[in-house]
């Protein structure tokens, strides 16, 4: 760390100043001039937190996508459909059993099983034919999208969160200070979004630990680097592929429940989340979990900030970030050159 600072003193200084300004914007009460220029602090904080929690959701979808891509070179363009399918199934299970929590393991298993079947019977048959695999995944996404439209129709569904997750919670961030009484107004934010953020962080850290600290993770990382050598050294790589594909698909399905809880489910959400995963992994770097986390955070915050401060051009910001990354670092921020 010291070394990096010594080598790039100017860049480090700029980054340190930016971080300080950002922390000040978040934690300090805003002076009236700033409020006059940018609007109330609450709007900014809401956009920021909305972006971070949206990023958490993007991460859950994109993590499976990037893992599958990194290991198997399969661009699974049906990933968004798995997300939407998980959401619809979660809605059915939650309204059938009345329990939001039961939906998670069931959806993980069902959608994960679907992923296993896809890998076992389709993608593994055409290993190495990347373009064909991608085309097949497009075909699967068309079929799944229409089947879901058939079964669940065009209206939008919302999954109800359990009681203790509904309502706002207070965060230790100053929203504003009442000028006459001097009382501090703390920021209140929907509890469910905060818990989803915490869950995403826990899942992300767990994935990182499994990948970097366990024997299975070692196999997966070795497979990402060189799957022929791994197979040659006696590992039954097809089993590793199956496990990763099933896990990635199941994760997308669970993300669907979360997406249905804090937004809504309707036809078209599948392409929206597929696009989000694509942009996230292009920005973060293909096959990298940390890259997916970073990319989700950047894209989520940019999208929400754009919605609040420049509604007509919010998509353009996301796109400009992607274009800039492609222009200057085609392998993604944390991707390895292959």
């Amino acid at each position, binding site marked *: 760390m010291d070394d990096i600072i010594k080598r790039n003193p100017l860049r480090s200084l700029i980054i340190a100043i930016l971080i300080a300004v950002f922390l000040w914007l978040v934690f300090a009460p805003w002076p009236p001039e700033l409020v006059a220029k940018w609007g109330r602090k609450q709007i900014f904080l809401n956009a920021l937190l909305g972006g971070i929690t949206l990023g958490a959701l993007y991460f859950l979808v994109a993590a499976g996508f990037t893992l599958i891509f990194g290991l198997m070179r399969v661009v699974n363009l049906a990933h968004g459909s798995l997300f939407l399918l998980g959401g619809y199934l979660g809605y059915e299970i939650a309204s059938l059993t009345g329990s939001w929590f039961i939906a998670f393991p069931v959806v993980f298993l069902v959608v994960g099983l679907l992923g296993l079947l896809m890998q076992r019977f389709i993608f593994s048959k055409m290993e190495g034919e990347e373009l*064909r695999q991608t*085309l097949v995944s497009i075909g699967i996404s068309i079929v799944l999208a229409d089947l879901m439209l058939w079964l669940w129709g065009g209206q939008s569904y919302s999954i109800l969160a359990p009681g203790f997750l509904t309502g706002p919670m207070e965060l230790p961030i100053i929203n504003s200070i009442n000028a006459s009484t001097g009382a501090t107004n703390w920021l209140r934010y929907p509890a469910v979004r905060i818990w989803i953020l915490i869950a995403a962080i826990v899942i992300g850290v767990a994935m990182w630990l499994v990948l970097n600290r366990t024997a299975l993770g070692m196999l997966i990382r070795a497979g990402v680097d060189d799957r022929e050598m791994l197979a040659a050294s006696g590992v039954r790589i097809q089993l590793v592929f199956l496990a990763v594909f099933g896990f990635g698909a199941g994760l997308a399905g669970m993300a669907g429940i979360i997406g249905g809880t804090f937004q809504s489910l309707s036809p078209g959400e599948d392409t929206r989340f597929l696009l989000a995963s694509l942009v996230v992994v292009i920005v973060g770097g293909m096959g990298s979990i940390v890259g997916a986390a970073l990319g989700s955070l950047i894209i989520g915050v940019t999208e929400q900030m754009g919605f609040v401060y420049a509604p007509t051009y919010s998509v353009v910001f*996301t*796109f400009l970030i992607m274009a800039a990354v492609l222009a200057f670092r085609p392998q993604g921020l944390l991707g390895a050159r292959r």
Partner: protein
Amino acid sequence: MAMTDHAPRFVNRADQKLWFERIPAPWWALAVVLLFLPVVANSFWLFQVMGWTFILGMIGLSLMFLAGYGGMVSLLQMTVAGMAGYMVAILGNSGTVTVSLGLSWWIVLPAAFLIAALFATVSGALAVRTEGIYTIMITLAIAAAFFYFTRQNYTIFNGYSGFNLVLPPQLFGVNWREPVPFYYLSLALAALSYGTVVYVSRSPFGLALQGVRDNPRRMAALGFNVTAHRVAAYALASVFASAGGILLVWQNAQIAPGTIGMSAAIDVLVVAVVGGMRRPLGPFIGAFIYVILQVFSPDILGFFGFSAERFKLIIGLGFLAVVLFSPDGVLGLWDRWRARRRQQQDQLSGGGAA
């Protein structure tokens, strides 16, 4: 058509066939059928079925050119077509007078082609920074970004509702939206695009592009600028897509974000893959199958007791079947069938009858 497979033969001028003798008879038959179709077909067939086939075929052709000769599967071609269509609506006349500039056609059309080509070139320059399946992901992301942008932006693209009453200019006193003139217009443009692709594929540029597709490193070592060839291919392909896009706007008399949505972008891919991406004829065959399915699916589905909305399911399943069992599309099936028949004939005649 696959002229590049043959070594050049040197023959005497006297032995050389005249140009019309070198075109095989089935092509002449096809040309005659297409030229005289208006005599027998009604306006629904001319305008809806054939017009739409040519339009979709041209947009698919631009994808086929990039994918088949350049090895770049781009999901951007519908967006390029939409860009040209939007430019016609924005610069020319439309029902939305607040946005449309109402310039005359001889400014609007070249400007639409130019802007779409510029858009395709810039996006292509971004996309060619990566290779293979990454290209699909990036072009899909660009296409989606443009779709969401047109839906949100009201100052230029008039947001959700888009533009309606976009009519072709009354050139030479002809209403080009009448079925017969529109049929001939789209046929002429489709034939021109087809001919251009066939010509370019045999030109030095096209051969170099195919070299880049097969082995970029070797082409780079030979002194070819790989990136420039790929970007130029995007620019050239944009012309066919733009022609299709402008015709599409005139045919529907309107354009909205839904025209260039994700499903439309994927439809173009479906059309090109189902027809076959090896040869320029493929996209037109794929487009014809797609349009026929689309137009007659209510009847067919109703016959089997399904609702007419399940059209996408048929398209998806058909696409899956083609990708799984015949990756080079319907044309690939045809080639294999001919090869097998020839083999059988050879066995019967003791072989050697070439």
